């Protein structure tokens, strides 16, 4: 699992590559917490190169979403593959986290 960070229209875009599972979810949490600065008010996770996520990863997403909500920061996900989207839908995460089809659409929605 690797995270690369970019900024566009005041949106912090963290692109996650590889797999998030029970063995590396803690590492994912630390990397994400390290990547999100205190001043970031808009955060987007780009999952276009994420191949796999399970409940251990969902737990981290939930914690980050909650943290950002407390700071009144916007949070969104984009570019989920079909099986990953299914995991989010079964878990009901699509009802509490905003999910977009593409990075451009997401940045347009939450960016300045």
């Amino acid at each position, binding site marked *: 699992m690797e995270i690369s960070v970019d900024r566009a229209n005041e949106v912090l875009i963290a692109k996650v590559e590889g797999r998030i599972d*029970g*063995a590396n979810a803690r590492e994912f949490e630390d990397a994400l917490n390290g990547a999100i600065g205190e001043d970031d008010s808009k955060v987007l996770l780009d999952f276009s190169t994420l191949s*796999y996520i*399970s409940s251990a990863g969902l*737990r981290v997403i939930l914690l980050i979403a909650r943290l950002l909500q407390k700071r009144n920061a916007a949070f969104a996900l984009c570019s989920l593959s079909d099986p990953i989207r299914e995991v989010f839908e079964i878990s009901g995460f699509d009802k509490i986290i905003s999910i977009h089809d593409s990075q451009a659409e997401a940045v347009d929605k939450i960016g300045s």
Partner: protein
Amino acid sequence: MSRRLSLSLPTKLDQLERIYEAVDELGESEEWPPGMVYQVKLVLEELGVNIVTHGHAGDPDHEFEIVLDSDADALTIELRDEGRPFNPLTDSPEPDIDSGLDDRPVGGLGIYLVRTMMDELSYRREDNHNILTIVKRKENG
């Protein structure tokens, strides 16, 4: 089209890679429908992590077994471990998937994903082992 694959794994989290590789290989040679490889990996990871972290409380000196039986119609999975008794059908609460962000409990989704994605689950405790049998029919993707 039919093939059986058995794995015997130490109760350590770094063994997940071996599970993924086995599922990739079996899914490809048995021509599983799209999406099924992901679902089977997820199911085995959720249950495997559960066995390692809860069933054996992180003690790495045990083994658990996975048998995958793929035929033309379905995949049958048998998981066998000697950890503390755990019946995923009755011992795992229904997760809250409706409440808002603040009220969502963290965790509890793994077993729910397993029950939702697979077609049949049955559990028995035999000779101090948990034995879980799972069926995933190919027609359901």
